[in-house]
Each structure stands twice: as C-alpha cells, then as structure tokens.
C-alpha cells in the first residue's frame, strides 16, 4: 500500500487510484492515518507548465479560421 498527497483536498491511494477524503468517518482515511504513523506518503506531483496558447489555438477555440477572421476584419492578404 502506498499513498500520494495531491494538490487538492484528497489523498491518492496509489494501488487503485482511489481519492480518499480527509474525513474521520471514512474507513479508508482511518487506514491511511494508521499507515502514516510509520510511513510517509509521496509528495504531490509538480504539474507541468501550461504553455501559452498560440493565436491560432485561440482562434480555433472560438471556431474561427485565420481567413475567416481576416474577412471579418476586412483585412486583405
């Protein structure tokens, strides 16, 4: 059995990817607390950096192509 802290309010049980809330009435959390008396959970992973969207991606997000935008703005090639 191994556990991992997360960036959220749950603890991840790595054997089955179960998300355990920090609730005293939860049997899995009780089991985790027992485990943690003699073990240390893995640290939460560092999320990968989120890349800035390109102009094309921003356009695609709203369903426009570059040509359509040019037409809308009356901009010639």
């Amino acid at each position, binding site marked *: 059995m191994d556990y991992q802290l*997360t*960036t*959220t*309010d*749950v603890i*991840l*049980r790595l054997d*089955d*990817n*179960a*998300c*355990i*809330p920090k*609730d005293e*009435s*939860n*049997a*899995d*959390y009780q089991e985790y607390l027992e485990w943690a008396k003699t073990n240390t959970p893995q640290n*939460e*992973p560092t*999320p*990968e950096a*989120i*890349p800035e*969207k390109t102009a094309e*991606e921003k356009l695609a*997000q709203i369903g426009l192509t570059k040509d359509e935008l040019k037409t809308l703005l009356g901009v010639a090639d």
Partner: protein
Amino acid sequence: MSLVLNGTTGITNLPSINSGQIGGRRNIVINGEMKVAQRSTSVAGLGAAAGYFTLDRFSIATAASAGRFTMAQIADGPAGFANCLKISTTTADTSIAAGEYLILGQPIEGQNLQQLKKGTASAEQVTVSFYVKGNAAALYVCELFDVDNGRSITQSFAVTTAWNRIELTFAADTSDPLDDDNVASLVLNLFLHGGSDFTGGTFAVNTWNDNTNANRYAVADRTSIYDSTDRTFFITGIQMELGDTATEFEHRSFGEELSLCQRYYTTSYSYGTAAGTATYDGSVKGESYRADRIDICPQFKVVMRAVPTVTIYSPSTGSSGNVYFDHAVNADREAVGSQIGMTGFGSCYRSAGDLSHNGDQHATCQYIAVAEL
C-alpha cells in the same frame, strides 16, 4: 388459555407476540436476502485480504491463512428466496496458525441500533435468524461484537446439507450503550475459521462479556471452512430483530434494498457493470475550462454514510484515475476527484501528467464512491 378476540376489549390472553417491533421495518440487517451485488457476483481467490467483494454490506475479515475461497451470489435458497451467498473453499488450510481467522460479517451503524437500548436497564434481547446449508455437517459461530465497548456475545449453529433456518436469541446487555452515530457500533459476525488465538479459551454461550479473542471461536467440535476443498457454505435470509422471537423474514423489494446499500457503495455504472469496464453507459459528463480543473459534478443516488472514497475511471479505456477528453485531445487524462461530500463531488483536478490541452474540453468519467464501515 385460549386467545380471545373481542370487539370491545380487543385481543386478550396473548401474553406476547414479540417484544420487538411487530409491523413495518423489522430487519436491521441490510441485503439479508442476498439480492444486491453491485461490485461483482463472484470473486475467486479470496482469503488474503479483508474487504467487501461481492454481495453488498457483507464483509470478509481475514488474517494470516493460506486458505482461499470463492465468494459468490448464486441462484439457490429455501422456498421464497431466489439468491444466497456461497463460499467455496478452493485452497485448503489444515495447518492452522494461531492468528488465523475468517469472518463473514455485517457492521451496523450505531444510530441504527439505538432501539436495542443497550447499556440501559431496559435493554432488549436480539434475535438473529438465517437459512444455511453446506456440503456436509458443520458447526460455526454467530457473534454480536460491540465495537464501541469491546464486548461480544456468541452462539454456535449447526449446518447440514439441507436448508435449515437457524434462530438465535441473544441476551440483552445492560452494560455499555452503543454510540448514536454513523460509524460501526455492532458487527454481526459469522466465524468460519480460527486459529488458537481465537479458539484457545473458553466458549461462553449467549453471555455478554468484555471481549477475549481466545473465547470467540472456542466452541467444541467447531469446523474450519478451510478443512477441505469440498467445503461449501450457503447462507441467505439473514434477519436481526428486537425481541426473543424470529419472525418471518421481512422481504424487501430490490429497489429498496439497493437504496439501502447505496448509502455505503454507489457507482455511476449501470447495475451489474463492474468498475473499470470501458463503457459510456451511465457516465457523467462535464467541461474543462481550465487546464487543471474539470467540472464534473455528479450527485450520488442517496446521501452516503460518510464522505466517501471516490475512484474515477475513463469510460473509454476503463483506466482508473483518469477522465476522458473527447474534444480535440481524444485521450485519457489523469485526474483526481475533489470537493467530495456525502451527496456528491464538486470537481476533478488534474494534478499530474500532461496539462497541455489548454482547457476547453468535454470530459467524461465513471466513478465509484465507497463509504463502507
């Protein structure tokens, strides 16, 4: 003295039907008719670990044994019962170490047991009844274990090759009340195997005592369910009720029983579909407007016993710990449930892996939520 029905004075000469509840909901046990099996109808190779595996609300407690068994819901039972729980030994263990045990049990919340009036001068007797059979004659032990106070009471019961109803009335306990809360206060246990740590003492018949492990399975001529790979144990119609009389089993509809079970285990999958199956049926959908957050916010079918442990699955691959992004990405993404409450969970967060989808995704997942005792 004859029973008299009189239009003026009512029923006379009827000293007692049952000191417990006569009508309405009587059975404290959930799923005693073995109708509901949300997780699976059959699991083989059990015995190494404790937990809930097949029929809802029935737990396996085990330690140390090399014995293994299959636990299954099967279509068999006495007249009026369509299903039963069957345990079939698949690996025998006749070299029994001291700490071994195997217990089939149902833990019960304290707030559902206050009518026992345990720990008061007016404490009630409790009657446990069930139907059993096996491959051969056997002797096991039924126990009420008071978790709150570390007390127990035991009686043995015999199994034959034919269905028989066992009726065991347990003494009232005027000592030590049960907590009025949502955690386990009493466990209805069926001891099926035990080593000397549980058999080395003196068996006390129907007497509440502070628990001594060595006494719990110390009945003479007890059976070990692991004594042979021929060994089977069938049980259904488990009822626990107030009073000294085993009344007729209280049949409930499947829907009622399922709702009672969903307080402890619920799932987005269709009934009969195992967790981790790749299917969109019943899946919950949401949107992801941020790279790290997915707004999937399912509500559970009933309010759960406690804030549950949640496992999410990709409906596309069945992979645990993943949601499926079906717009542009078209792939699983790792995620964890978050903001979990007794009525649902508020979102999923992507705390690991590739966050480069830039948000704006449709997301889908399946889930199970577990708040077992």
